[in-house]
């Protein structure tokens, strides 16, 4: 077997390898570790210059409590949730239907539309900024969560449809044929035959889109302002300018802002990676 499992190598090679990797890993994660440690320190440690030593007192609950109860953070988090979840549901629902049409039916223009979806996938989002902003203002949706959700749904639908179409193409087609022969109507085939088979793709796509939307910053800045509608990515910069000198609070805020997608990632790692792989290979 190759590569030789490290267990079969010489003792010295094994030890150095096993020791080398954790060191590299710690350096890799040093930024996160530093921020995590900062977020547990009391204010006094920062005025005394005790940045790198042990915390003089353990202020985890105090710092995070302040973030949660004395700032706009909970509001930003709620906004993020209210923007992300409808977007995920909307984009996945739309793309299921479009992907089904492109994957199952043969009709004139099928390929052309498919290529348009591919092309749309590569359009840099900056190019959309001014018209989309104008459109949102015209629709009276500027600085609302709805405006942001509508745009995100539309923009993500391109990628999602491609993803779904490729997945549906790989499904066993005879299954659909058999259902047709049985005289089952098309919408039932979609709901009861194809949709259950798409569960893994749905999960992967949902996790992927969740992190994409949660982490979006550009559109949050372009289409919203102020804590009424802005998601947490925009909120964190606001928060940081508000607590400019309070490093313990800034760190706690950063951790809070990053936590949901990271937690999502660890809980749904399998789906996340499956989504990335499926999305990248095609």
């Amino acid at each position, binding site marked *: 077997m190759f590569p030789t499992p490290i267990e079969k190598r010489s003792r010295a090679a094994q030890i150095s390898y096993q020791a080398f990797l954790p060191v590299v890993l710690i350096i890799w994660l040093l*930024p996160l570790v530093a921020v995590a440690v900062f977020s547990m320190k009391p204010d006094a440690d920062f005025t005394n210059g005790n940045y790198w030593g042990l915390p003089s007192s353990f202020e985890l609950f105090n710092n995070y409590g302040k973030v949660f109860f004395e700032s706009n953070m909970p509001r930003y988090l709620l906004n993020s949730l209210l923007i992300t979840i409808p977007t995920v549901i909307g984009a996945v629902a739309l793309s299921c239907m479009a992907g089904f049409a492109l994957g199952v039916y043969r009709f004139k223009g099928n390929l052309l539309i498919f290529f348009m979806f591919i092309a749309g996938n590569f359009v840099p989002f900056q190019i959309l900024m*001014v018209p989309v902003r104008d459109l949102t203002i015209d629709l009276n949706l500027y600085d609302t969560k709805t405006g942001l959700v509508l745009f995100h749904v539309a923009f993500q639908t391109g990628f999602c449809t491609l993803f779904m179409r490729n997945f549906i193409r790989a499904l066993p087609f005879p299954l659909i044929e058999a259902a047709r022969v049985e005289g089952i109507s098309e919408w039932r085939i979609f709901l009861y035959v194809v949709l259950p088979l798409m569960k893994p793709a749905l999960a992967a796509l949902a996790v992927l889109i969740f992190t994409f939307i949660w982490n979006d*910053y550009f559109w949050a800045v372009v289409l919203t302002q102020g804590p009424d509608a802005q998601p947490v990515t925009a909120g964190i910069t606001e928060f940081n300018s508000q607590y400019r000198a309070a490093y313990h609070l800034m760190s706690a805020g950063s951790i809070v802002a990053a936590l949901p997608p990271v937690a999502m*990632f660890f809980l749904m790692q399998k789906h996340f990676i499956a989504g990335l792989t499926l999305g990248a290979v095609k």
Partner: protein
Amino acid sequence: MEAALLGIVTIVVGVGGCLAYFYFSNQFLDHVLFPAKGANAGRNINRANQIRPWLFLFPAIFALSLYLAYPVVATLWYSVTDRSQGGAFVGFANYAQMMDEPKFWEAMRNNMLWLIIVPAASTAFGLLAAQLTDRIKWGSIAKSLIFMPMAISFVGAAVIFKLIYDTRPVDQAQIGVMNAVWLQFEGGIGSLLILRLLPALLMLCGAAAGVYVIIGQVTAIREKGGVLVRGLAILVLAWIVFSLLSLALGAVTAVHPYGEPQTWLTIPGWNSFLLMIVLIWIQTGFAMVILSAALRGIPEETIEAAIVDGANPFQVFFKIKLPQISGTIVVVWTTITLTVLKVFDIVFAMTNGQWETQVLANYMFDKLFRANDWGVGSAAAMVIMLLVSPILVWNVYNARKEMR
């Protein structure tokens, strides 16, 4: 709480709307418009089946044309008009004005640097990580940890790295990790080893690898021809080798201001690299995951055969494994390239393009929102589009080839 309730209502209405649209449009088609009974039953079924795909496609296409197709055309139009003159057509005046600005060329130069360095570094690190973690028991844990930054937003990462690069006055303790480490160097033997010899050695290794590839290309020209493409590759490689050598020389001879905390983000030249590190930190995990899946997909027999023939581990890796995953490497590379072309959040949150770190996306944002110059901003957006289009065309072309 009201907002949460509103959100739930929106979701229910949205999903319900989707389902209702889906159900009723199909019912309408099957039972009202072209019912599958009566005199024309057969023809009606065919007709209904021709229309049905468009029922499924309609919502997606409507959304995309409203929020994607129309804005692209509109931006193209903005880039050749002037809003201050009431939207009059001005031809290429906006582009000409943009070309005259040094800030634009600075953004272009920086973007090119980002384009070369970030995908290369992320893919190389990702490949290394995939290869190294595949061989140990707790490799999957290591992988999730390396991959974790991918889940953090660019802004979140930028905020975190801002703390890392932070500076305090000379007489205070340093809060930024970079400066805390920097102050450990005092010009002694340790500094000599780490700040001069190590980077110089790395650069020399890179240069040696470049020379090796050049020699390979030269022999390939002798044996197989292809002077034009290979000659171009050799020229580019020679330039890279040359710059690596001069960098190595620079690392040995540079004068370092030991003991003074540096404001890292304001040092032109270096600060761009410090910003790139943030993106590399995020994208390496992505490259690693995809490449690790590809590495596992390589058939064992090919590797066994190579070992039986007496190949050493380096040969196995570079001559057997790499060629077999070259397709995946290209995919990873282009995906990261696309991300790089659109990079905005990191620069915006960390330096906002000051101190010579401007990139195109941020330049555009600056023009639109600060200078309120819609024409030039749109022209900059078109430049980004132009840079993306080769990848776009190449992808559509590949998809077509796959169809046949």
